[in-house]
């Protein structure tokens, strides 16, 4: 009998905790509510969310967001996605990252979904619902083109990546292919978690002329360390997301805040199409719209001079220079 009392105490404590938090955060019924499902806590993904929320609030001041973060768990992503699908006042689901987008697309849906920060939209399941999104795939061909143009003496390129991230694998295989065509050596340096990073990065810098980082969550979170190491080793470091980190020579990739803004535009389009009764446009997976956040090149003057490079004289370089 006493065990039942214990279990009741535990369950009611948990319920009391969540309901008190709920009570503190209760709002009146909103006109438009959007469910945001994020794959994990991460600076770039947080930036996407911030850009999205900011733009949406500017356009629709009465808008309300319900945010859930799966923190990498498939089970949590699935439960949260279903929760969003089953709530009638949620008009649209915004997913950030591959795992969250897959979970939302796999759950039965009649609601429009807008995704962002998915590197390879072909990875998403095919779906009949109204799916629209932006991809943060970087233009690896342009990156390799720039290497050939600006740093013609480079013979060996090392790529640091976390092989457990699908986006990194897509990009590194593209890099391998393109560098092979350009007759430049290619090697992969795998980092599974942040604790491996400093050793692997050191090895990558010592064995290569140049280190390239794809849009990898683990790497991006530790970019400061890699940038410092690049300066110590006096080797070129290229990044695939902006803003540029001290120590990197140039960054070519997606500005995640603008990426979120682009996604917000698609979401507004879906909502207005829904309101006017016309069926929202279905682009389907694989036909992501990259919008205005298309890759831009940012070159660091101080790193270029630290490496003794003179690339400011290169003609037809469409880049923004920073100190």
């Amino acid at each position: 009998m006493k065990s039942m009392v214990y279990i009741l105490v535990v369950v009611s404590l948990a319920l009391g905790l969540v309901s008190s938090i709920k009570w503190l955060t209760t709002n009146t019924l909103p006109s438009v509510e959007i469910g945001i499902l994020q794959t994990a806590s991460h600076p770039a993904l947080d930036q996407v969310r911030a850009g999205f929320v900011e733009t949406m609030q500017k356009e629709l001041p009465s808008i309300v967001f319900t945010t859930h973060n799966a923190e990498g768990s498939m089970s949590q992503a699935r439960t949260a996605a279903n929760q969003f699908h089953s709530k009638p006042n949620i008009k649209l689901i915004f997913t950030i990252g591959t795992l969250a987008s897959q979970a939302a697309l796999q759950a039965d849906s009649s609601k429009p979904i807008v995704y962002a920060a998915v590197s390879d939209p072909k990875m998403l399941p095919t779906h009949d619902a109204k799916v629209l999104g932006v991809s943060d795939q970087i233009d690896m061909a342009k990156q390799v083109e720039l290497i050939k143009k600006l740093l013609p003496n480079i013979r060996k390129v090392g790529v640091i990546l976390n092989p457990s991230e699908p986006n990194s694998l897509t990009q590194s295989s593209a890099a391998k292919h393109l560098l092979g065509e350009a007759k430049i050596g290619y090697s992969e340096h795998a980092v599974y978690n942040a604790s491996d990073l400093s050793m692997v990065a050191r090895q990558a810098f010592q064995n290569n002329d140049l280190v390239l980082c794809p849009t990898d969550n683990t790497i991006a979170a530790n970019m400061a360390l890699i940038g410092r190491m690049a300066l110590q080793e006096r080797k070129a470091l290229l990044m695939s997301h902006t803003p540029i980190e001290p120590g990197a020579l140039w960054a070519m990739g997606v500005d995640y805040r603008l990426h979120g803004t682009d996604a917000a535009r698609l979401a507004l389009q879906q909502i207005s199409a829904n309101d006017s009764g016309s069926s929202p446009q279905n682009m389907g997976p694989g036909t992501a719209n990259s919008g205005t956040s298309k890759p831009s090149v940012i070159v660091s003057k101080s790193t270029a001079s630290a490496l003794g490079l003179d690339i400011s004289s290169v003609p037809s370089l469409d880049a923004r220079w920073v100190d």
Partner: protein
Amino acid sequence: MSLTVLNEVMIQGLIYSLVALGMYITQRVIRVDDLACEGAFASGGAVFATAVSMGFFPPVAIPLALFAGIGIGALSCFLHCKLNVPMLIAGLAVTCGLFSLNLGMAGANLSLPHGSIGLFGLTLHLTPALPLIVLCGFSLLGVHWLLTTEIGLLLRAAGDNPNLLYALGKRHEHYKMVGLMIANGFSALSGALFIWYLGFFSITGSIGTLLVGLASLTLASFWPKSILFGIPIGCILYQLIFALTIEMGVSPIWNNLLKASILVLLIYAQNGARREVATCST
């Protein structure tokens, strides 16, 4: 909370109850702390996802995952019994090594082909729950029956009283191995069903399975008649707590703290219940 979410909770709870059933065998029957079940869960999913994307019919891929799990159980027992690696470390080493194998096999993220999505080929809301209830019911009854047979008796003895096995001239390693093989087989089966249900495999998705299984098993041990039959209830209750936190909009930052606190509270409560039984019997 809507019916959709409750159904979701029930299906996930039932799938995880197979992990908890495996942990019941390792924790309560042969009494070893098997950490390999987290690796087995992930590998079950990876084997299933790879096989299906290679063109296997999903019901054929499920036994493949099951066999992989059985192999994993045998491997961790081999490390423990033959190479004298402590059980905790053997489990950790197996889980750690399997991560690379899974990555090599299925990659970081793998969507199932469109035709094979939906548990048991059923995409309607309530229907996957029914075959799942049958499957879990058979598994529970199977384990219950097994523990009443002679092998089951010796399995229990391997945990409770290894001296009995020596007295009977049996090697208790053999029975540990049988227990670990069954337990990891259940974990892998659960992993495969989970991937089938979700429709995609993600390398990071299985992290934390151990905690879910352990907490669910502890919840199950409050079931008055038999822990074994409390397992599905415990698992569903545990999933329900998390669905509630999502429903209530609790920030997911606190999720892991909540999980840890629930586990500690449950074990404390369970010890309280044991103390009570002890005082009653004296």
